[in-house]
């Protein structure tokens, strides 16, 4: 050797336990190391760990001697190595079969796609089995073994959907007797093909099964060369192949990357695509495997490689779902299901009320039970059909409308058909604004009961700007009027926020009081002769706003369709509130104050300011609801302006879990229900509108108390982590 040894960069290997010719992990890691050392001119150092207790000190020794790269097997002591790595920042630790926990820059774990190797083994087993029963023996159910196992199962199912897979775990990687016993028990269940992943314990199972004439598949390395001693051991002709993990290749690759400066910690995955796993040659079984089967396996290999085919096994060996439907199912379906069931239950109970309050049903019951029952059903069906048609329109009519429109460009029928739908959306619009208002308050820990009053004041200011300013174009006048609404609501609610911040007065009381003040203020301003009343009119209404302050309609030529651009504004508001809450520093502060005011204060957040700000924003949104109803629908302000949005808004925020998108969905639901209810009220159904309020109330109860729904439908709660008990009292500061 010409080069001075001491100048060569050093790479080291410490066996986890055992010698470097153990025929498995340590040996292959060593081979990879040797190859890299050879190729890149490195000095390699090796310590064979005799007892586990010396493992760490061996690593320390090499690290201290200046090894820049240290390779070892991580499955047993990976965590300790990680801890050690913190003390030797200049040494890069490469751990075979281990996923680092803390992702340090000098710890790299090498993991393998055992599931792919297992899948191919399974595919082959599925094609080879004659009895239709194949077996798997595992050592301990750690991630790599689980990956082999489930990959194998899915591989079998892929090529032979009638085959059954039975399995047994020996609970050990070393106990050969248990391996033999496992093989016997599976043979008793009729297997004729066996795959084992369990170290020497598993190999013993393979030997046993092969001796009984079953096909066997080895694991980790080509067991033809090890367990079956290069074909000289009995049963080697029954070894189909082995699912091989190329540890040597992985170690070599990792070292190469390190030298190229590309190794920066984390995990490297080795799979079919980068030659990390594969199937071993068929050896003595080659002639028994038809070329057709061999071709199929090649196809599957390619499909796996290109990810066209998925093993449906996760990184921890768990079975994952695939395809659209399962993915949806594996989604947090309870979150979707519970509201749905709540709505459904509420409608069912509502149905009882509908029947119970229908005089015709009573009359029918007096003639006989079944007559009564029939009448109940027709009454309920009648009512809910109206509800549906009132909310969405009649589907047949909509289709008809489209047909006529397509043929004649005449949209009269179509417009009439979609009128209910547009009306639902229009009714949803103020709900969205008001719901967002309350939700935003909730996020800051504030209970804004005053949305109703803010809606009023917003309306007042919007209408004032709408009629008093004249001669401006729409592009200026409309925004001014909208801003007027926002400012009105914001000022009104900020009063409550300010009182809370300064004096600690509870916002619930203050906003309720402010509601009354707002109602009386409107009385004063709008009553005949009041400062904002319409001159010469005997009703307590404001003047009409200027045309230039109208929110543009979607169908300007058809005044019966009242849906206007306010709906678009509401959708924008949903986006803006989301952005504000979750993407801005102010939103962060508000959420922090809402979630833990103590921590917020300690972290230097101005809690008072957050209260005032959140209240003001909340009020601005409620004011927008008022502005929408004035500028988009009524175009003037009557004294009896209230429609209870402010109170429904609390329900909406609760239903939507104070999330903007949740509020949007809840608002649409309420809008559709309200629109439907109006139709339901009319003949032929003639159901009192109160029924819908009952249904709405029931929905809220069921959503607020999911346990009730769970109980009715026997859904087990997803055991969330935080079943914490609330220790913070309501209203405590």
């Amino acid at each position, binding site marked *: 050797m010409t080069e001075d040894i001491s100048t060569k960069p050093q790479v080291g290997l410490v066996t986890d336990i055992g010698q470097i010719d153990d025929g498995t992990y340590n040996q292959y890691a060593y081979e990879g190391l040797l190859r890299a050392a050879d190729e890149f001119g490195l000095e390699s150092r090796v310590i064979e760990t005799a007892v586990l207790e010396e493992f760490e000190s061996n690593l320390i020794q090499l690290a201290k001697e200046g090894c820049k790269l240290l390779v070892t097997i991580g499955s047993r002591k990976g*965590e*300790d190595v990680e801890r050690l790595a913190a003390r030797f920042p200049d040494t890069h630790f490469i751990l075979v079969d281990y996923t680092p926990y803390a992702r340090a820059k000098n710890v790299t774990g090498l993991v393998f796609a055992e599931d792919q190797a297992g899948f191919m083994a399974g595919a082959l087993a599925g094609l080879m089995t004659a009895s239709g029963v194949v077996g798997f023996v595992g050592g301990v159910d750690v991630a790599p073994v689980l990956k082999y196992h489930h990959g194998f199962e899915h591989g079998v199912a892929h090529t032979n959907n009638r085959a059954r897979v039975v399995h047994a775990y020996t609970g050990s990687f070393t106990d050969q007797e248990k391996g033999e016993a496992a093989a016997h028990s599976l043979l008793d269940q009729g297997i004729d093909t066996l795959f084992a992943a369990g170290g020497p314990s598993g190999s013993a199972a393979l030997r046993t099964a092969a001796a009984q004439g079953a096909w066997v598949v080895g694991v980790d390395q080509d067991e033809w060369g090890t367990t079956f001693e290069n074909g000289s051991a009995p049963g080697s002709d029954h070894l189909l192949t082995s699912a091989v993990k190329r540890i040597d290749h992985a170690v070599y690759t990792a070292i190469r990357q390190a030298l190229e400066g590309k190794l920066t910690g984390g995990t490297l995955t080795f799979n079919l695509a980068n030659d990390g796993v594969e199937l071993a040659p068929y050896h003595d079984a080659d002639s028994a495997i038809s070329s057709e089967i061999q071709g199929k396996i090649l196809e599957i290999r390619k499909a796996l490689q290109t990810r066209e085919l998925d093993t449906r096994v996760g990184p921890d060996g768990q079975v994952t779902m695939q395809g659209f439907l399962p993915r949806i199912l594996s989604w947090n379906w309870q979150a979707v299901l519970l509201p749905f069931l709540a709505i459904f239950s509420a409608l069912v109970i509502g149905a009882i009320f509908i029947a119970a309050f229908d005089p015709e049903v009573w009359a029918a019951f007096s003639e006989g039970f079944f007559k009564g029952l029939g009448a109940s059903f027709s009454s309920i069906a009648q009512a809910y059909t109206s509800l549906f048609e009132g909310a969405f329109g009649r589907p047949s009519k909509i289709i008809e409308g489209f047909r006529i429109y397509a043929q004649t460009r005449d949209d009269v029928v179509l417009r009439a058909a979609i009128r209910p739908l547009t009306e639902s959306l229009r009714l949803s619009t103020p709900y969205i604004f008001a719901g967002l208002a309350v939700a935003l308050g909730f996020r800051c820990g504030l209970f804004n009961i005053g949305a109703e009053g803010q809606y009023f004041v917003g309306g007042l200011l919007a209408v004032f700007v709408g009629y008093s300013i004249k001669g401006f174009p729409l592009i200026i006048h409309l925004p001014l009027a909208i801003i007027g609404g926002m400012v009105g609501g914001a000022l009104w609610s900020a009063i409550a926020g300010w009182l809370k911040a300064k004096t600690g007065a509870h916002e619930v009381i203050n906003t309720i009081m402010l509601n009354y003040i707002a109602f009386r203020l409107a009385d004063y301003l709008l009553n005949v002769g009041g400062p904002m009343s319409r001159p010469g009119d005997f009703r307590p209404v404001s003047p009409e706003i200027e045309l230039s302050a109208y929110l543009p309609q979607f169908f300007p030529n058809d005044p019966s369709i009242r849906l206007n651009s306010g709906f678009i504004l509401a959708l924008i508001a949903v986006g803006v509130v989301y952005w504000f809450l979750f993407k*801005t520093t102010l939103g962060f502060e508000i959420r922090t104050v809402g979630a*833990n005011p103590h921590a917020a204060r300690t972290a230097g957040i101005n809690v008072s300011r957050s209260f005032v700000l959140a209240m003001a924003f909340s009020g601005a949104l409620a004011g927008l609801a008022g502005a929408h109803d004035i500028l988009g629908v009524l175009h003037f302000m009557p004294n009896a302006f209230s429609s209870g949005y402010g109170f429904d808004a609390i329900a909406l925020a609760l239903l939507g879990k104070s999330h903007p998108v949740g509020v949007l969905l809840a608002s649409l639901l309420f809008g559709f229900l309200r629109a439907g209810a109006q139709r339901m009220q009319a003949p032929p159904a003639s159901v009192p509108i109160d029924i819908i309020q009952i249904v709405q109330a029931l929905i809220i109860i069921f959503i607020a108390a999911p346990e009730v729904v769970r109980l009715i439908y026997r859904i087990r709660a997803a055991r969330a*982590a935080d079943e914490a008990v609330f220790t913070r009292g309501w209203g405590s500061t």
Partner: protein
Amino acid sequence: MPPVLELRGITKAFPGVLANDHIDLTLEEGTVHALLGENGAGKSTLMNILYGLYTPDEGEIYIRDQRVEIDGPNKAISLGIGMVHQHFMLIPVFTVAENVMLGVESLRNGIFLDPSAAASRIGEISQMYGLRVNPNTYVKELPVGIQQRVEIIKLLYREADILILDEPTAVLTPQEVEEFFKIIRSLVDRGKSLIFITHKLNEVMEIADDITVLRGGRVAGVTKPSQTTQKELASMMVGREVVLQVDKQPAEPGDVVLQVENLEAVDDRGNAALRGVSFEVREGEVLGIAGVQGNGQTELVQALTGLRNILAGSVHIAGADLTNASPRKILQQGVAHVPEDRQQDGLVLSFPVSDNMVLNTYYKPPFARYGSLNQKQILAAADERAREYDVRTPSLSIPVSNLSGGNQQKVIVAREFSRPISLLIASQPTRGLDVGSIEYIHRRIIEKRDEGTAVLLVSSELEEVMSLSDRIAVMFEGEIVDILWADEVTREQVGLLMAGVKGD
């Protein structure tokens, strides 16, 4: 006699962590079984399984050789299992009696709550086990030590005979610990069996009959106090040698950073808590405040950090007058604050780990620009801090409440230590931490000191104050009775001063 409780092969995985991995544990009747382990070793998880809060993925539970399924706390209670959680679960605005009877209310005429019946039972229980407490006071008015008694009474009220105590001593003063041990002994004398989780090895040696050590979710060892040493336990827990002694060079104090003069403040109830406190902390030194809890330390820290109104006196930090300045102004002056009550003041439990890592710097670049947050930067910084401070979490986006208690503390330490600071105010910085992490945090504090940071350390652990401080100020009844050089004073001297006995 069969063991009163046996856990076999308990396994529980959370997304990304195997919190319990085939754990076996045997509790003999009438004994104290200590459960030791690093932060995040899975102790609380195991106990939550036993108490029915979590369902195990695998494993069996036997009570007196009977296999049982514990599917909820109610089941656990009916089997005689009771648990005091690491973080208390009392309702502050209820009285002691109301808290105790919650869930098992005694009723008068089958309708009305009967607090007096409860109160008399509480009286009996207190009598029998030496758990003195007035049933009619509100919980929020009780010091933590007494709140703990309430928790224990709650269990006895429900007739538990297997008691799980999750880090009961973490929040207690040394005196309270003494009291607490007396209670434990009287419980054992009456045949109760206890599982006792702690990080304090001396306590284990004193009170335990058996010891199980967990590490990384597995049983790392089972032993007895008579067969082991503290050092051995420590290395069993952490998996390596632990230096129990802090190793530091003499301080090289520089300019005065924190100057406190004649500070006066009142506590929450309006009683004088600080009566003219004066001291200074210099660059590169650690001033430790020793004192029995409740002698004004909490109020002192709050006054310094802008969280409590200062009635008289002044606070200067790096020359700037920060008397009654806002918390943010003080933080911006380069003050780091590790608050005493991490769950109340240090963290927003429902927020992700990442947001908690920037709880007081979220508004600064690179985390925010023009008022809009940059989640990428926040995550990147959080990731770096989590690694550097060895915060063990499967992901940065899970709520911080899912972390083990010790790891929650590390989140705060990571946050406070990783910004440029000139003054570190640390209250009980290692409360609830395992020995390995304590060693680590002590090292970081000394490192900060050596970088020239002034450190004000408040701790009810005399040991901690003694080993970290360069000077020690002893507080008693709202006054600093003496300031001593740490290397010239003994434990006993400090202890006497803490008890209000003035030396001459």
